[in-house]
């Protein structure tokens, strides 16, 4: 999973590419550390090139969402492919993470 973060003040545009699973979840957690600090972050996760997420990936997104909520910010995931979106739907995660 490649993570590219473009930051402009409190706005973060994050491009996610590839698969997110148990083999790279630890690295992903390190990659998104810049998103875990600062007040009122406004985060967009661009999932155009995200191929897959496992349960471990869902846990990472949940952790990020909670951190963003606690700092009064907002997070949205965009351009998910139908397979990835289905993972969020069938686990109920699309009820708790904003996906557009």
């Amino acid at each position, binding site marked *: 999973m490649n993570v590219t973060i473009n930051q402009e003040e409190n706005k973060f545009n994050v491009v996610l590419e590839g698969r997110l699973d148990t083999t790279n979840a630890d690295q992903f957690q390190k990659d998104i550390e810049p998103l875990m600090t600062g007040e009122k972050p406004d985060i967009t996760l661009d999932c155009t090139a995200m191929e897959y997420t496992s*349960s471990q990936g*869902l846990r990472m997104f949940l952790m990020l969402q909670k951190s963003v909520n606690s700092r009064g910010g907002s997070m949205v995931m965009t351009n998910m492919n139908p397979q990835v*979106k289905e993972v969020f739907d*069938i*686990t109920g995660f699309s*009820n708790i993470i*904003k996906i557009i």
Partner: protein
Amino acid sequence: MEQDDLEKYGLDMHCTMILEEYRANYESFVKIKEIILDCIRQALKQNGMFVTAVEGRVKEEKSLAGKLELKGHKYRTLSDITDIVGTRVITFYTDDVDKIAAIAENNFDIDWENSVDKRKMHTLDSFGYMSLHYICRVPKKLYHDPAHPEINEFRWELQLRTTLQHMWANMNHDCGYKGDVEIPVEHLRNMNRLAGVLELADDEFSRIRIAVNEYRRQVQALVASGNFDEVSLDVDTFRSYLNLKPFDKLNNHIAAINQAEIHQDTLMPYLRMFKYLGFKTLGDIEKLQKESSDDAYQLAKLEIGGTDLDIISSTVSVQDLCIVHILKNGGGEDGLASFFDELNGPSSYNRTRAQRLVEKTARMPFMKKQ
């Protein structure tokens, strides 16, 4: 402290000595104010009470000098002046004034002789300033420092009033006692008429709160007794219902498919969705659970059974119940797409998701019964 500095006020020797005493004890007054405000805030927190404001001030030297100039002869020493530290609690409701008065009585030594309940000073046909003024001391059980006995000796004032009483008092002060111009009786009468209206509004707010609390108690009793058909669906009733954890059984059942962890999320957004689906009472939700839990489980099994997903949101059970309800009632793809639009906001995903669900569930037993 420079005597020369105090002479600028032009007070006589007696009043100047009181001002000197004030300066010498200023830090103790600040400490008294902090002790009082901390104590009140902590007591409010412990009692789960919310108020508009808890505030306090130490009278400024200039203001004290002005008071001494006007009526310095009344005071033998600084201790005779009881409003150098002034504190105030402004409440939302009239009954809270009495509750906070009880808190004050439990925590402070009240000088009853000098305390005044201005609310009880009005005659049947008079309206105006309404506030409870307590003159108090900090008791040793609350704070004791042998090096500063004055902290327990100086008296101070605590005012308790509602937000509307506070507003009236401020406006009355602003309109009635400002400058040298005598205010015409007509305007003073209008201010007092307004006091009557605000008193009525305060009473009405309290009456509404009592009625709402009584309604909540009745609803909680109905929910607890399981008479769900009699309980209409609203924020309070749904919250009380969720306290019974009505969807846990289905969630646990679904989680067992993949030995998944359940992430607990709020189900309150589904109140809106149940209303959207036309549910009127908690009984309607119970009926849905009774009639469709097995089908919702089968749907979840179909969806996550073939995956290695081992985490689900606690919203899954309700989500799947609603999906099954829509499909069973002939809502089809359009019904599902509209439901998802309402739940998560309009998105092209919602139509795709609805199509996928219709295709997936076509062979499920509950669809064959249609």
